[in-house]
């Protein structure tokens, strides 16, 4: 794996989550801090990804969810 990429263990891809696909953990590009998915074309800042996931969970299940980006 390239050195400029680290695994965002705790953050799953909101786009894959919306499609009922098993948790796909987002990757992170160290140069610009962006989080991105290896399976689909989702790219966002970690904060935006966390916010989007939270809203998707509310939409899909009617529940809020704590999800802290690390």
């Amino acid at each position, binding site marked *: 794996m390239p050195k400029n990429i680290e695994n965002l263990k*705790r953050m*799953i891809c909101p786009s894959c*989550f919306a499609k*009922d*696909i*098993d*948790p796909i953990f987002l990757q992170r590009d160290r140069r610009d801090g962006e989080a991105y998915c290896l*399976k689909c074309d989702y790219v966002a800042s970690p904060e935006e990804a966390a916010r989007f*996931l939270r809203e998707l*969970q509310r939409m899909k*299940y*009617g*529940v*809020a*969810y*704590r999800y802290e980006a690390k």
Partner: protein
Amino acid sequence: MSSLHVNLIHRADSGPETLEALRFQLEEAQRLGLQATVLVSYRAFFDSAMMAYLQELRQKRSVEFGIHTHCLVCPDYIEHFKTRESALYYLSRSLKAAVLKRLFELFEKAFGFEPKAIGAYILDAWTQNHIKEAHPGVEVAITNCFEEGVKMYHGNDNSWYLFSDGGPWGPFYPSKESSLCPARDEAEWNGLVALPHLNRDMLMALTSRDDYFSSHPVNLFRARINEGAECPYAFRFINEWNRQLEVNGYAYYSLFVSSPWLADGHWAIENVNEARSLYSDTLGYLRDMVDAGEAVSETMLDTARNFRETKRIGSAEQCHWIDALRSKGREVWWQATPDYRAAIDLNAGASIVDLRPWCGRNDLNMGPEEPALWNGNYPFVISSEHRGGQKRCSQRCVLEVGDQQAELVGARYKVEVADRESFSTDRREARVGDATVKIRSRFDFSKEGCIEVERILEDSDTSLPVRVTESFRGCVGQTEYPEDLRGIVLRVAGADSDATELEFNYDSRTLERKGSGSAQASIPSLRASISLGVEDSDVSLEAREGVMFDPFFELRASRELKPGESLKTCLRISKI
């Protein structure tokens, strides 16, 4: 006994993490006084620490032991069988028999007796028959994963080769011919009581992934439906299964979390302590139900024996599920008989949205020498989920006033009255152009192999007649891709002998007739016939042939109704 029958099932695998997690699970079961079953996998027999722990349990006589057919691959397995195939159900018949023989030998050597319970994700009919023949002491087996197939495959990044869509959701008497079809009578029964791998959310089974939403508390973390260790849905889900006692007269609940899900580092779990906390809370909830007399804690063998005392072979099963996830009141009705399995979506105008013609007893044996090869899904003739939604593939009601038309699919029904052979919906309004009609639906399952559907026009605010059509749009399929419909014979026939018919060739043709009779589709590949029949001289019958871009056949019965009148059709599912 009129209580929820609860099984608490575990799988013993190998490795120190899973051993520690299994200890946690069994200590929790013991703390709460719940009966526990441990199904021992092939790999576990070669893990000395695991076997030492299981021997401790054996000496205490505190759990039921059986065999599980998952986790086969280990050096001994590869040496003996020269394969790395991890799924028993995908081995050849000779290897299936050899692996089972070895598993039973290992078990008997370790524990000194023959197991009566066996676990699997899928056991095809050949394997079940073989088990009963070679190991007649086995009484109960986990044989299928309800509605695990196409959607799970996609959700697992197209990597989980387990296809058992289209089977029963609860305990049943499996037939000798086809593993997912319940036996009609003693002669058809293979001698085992079949249990499902987990209870599933019966609404999410239609609309989403029911491995996420199941009696597996840790999978709720995988679905991201929890908040930390909190997940109220887990308990609403149990309550909904408990409510099935009123609906079905029998209810079963199987909590089966294999220990890797509760071991640190599982790929789907962020915090194992939270997962364990929810697991323990769920067990505690079941314990409270036992204390309140609402549930009874059993081993698998107890459940099988109680089931045989409670349910006769060939009896029907019902499930009336009210949305437990969002708690917004959406309802679905499932009906299973030896001839068919049907799902009726009340939320979509009380339409039949899934139909499996079990009467055909299709061969679902799997393995390199079998025609089905990998695909254990029982074929459907209706699947709204895999064929474009309720308006494209279902049995539904269509309304016409003048030149205006509307689908009853837009009406969100609820069950108003139900018994074990029928249910009636509440009354709903439907807009047809400028007119409003009020209509109620009634389903009756009391006649063998038939679903009677009655659409009752209670009122309308127009002086124009209301034409009500019952439409069955069907096909053949096991996945979301279209299959060859050639060979299907469409027919319209009356009580007299003047039937007309055509062989399906995607030519957009229509057969019509007036008066009592039926519109039929004979489907050789499924060894099944579907017939929409009506006893009514004013009815019009049609059988329509679809085209390549709309690959369905449609059976229609329609007539004009005045308020107070109804259209009653009988959908007959029979073997050819």
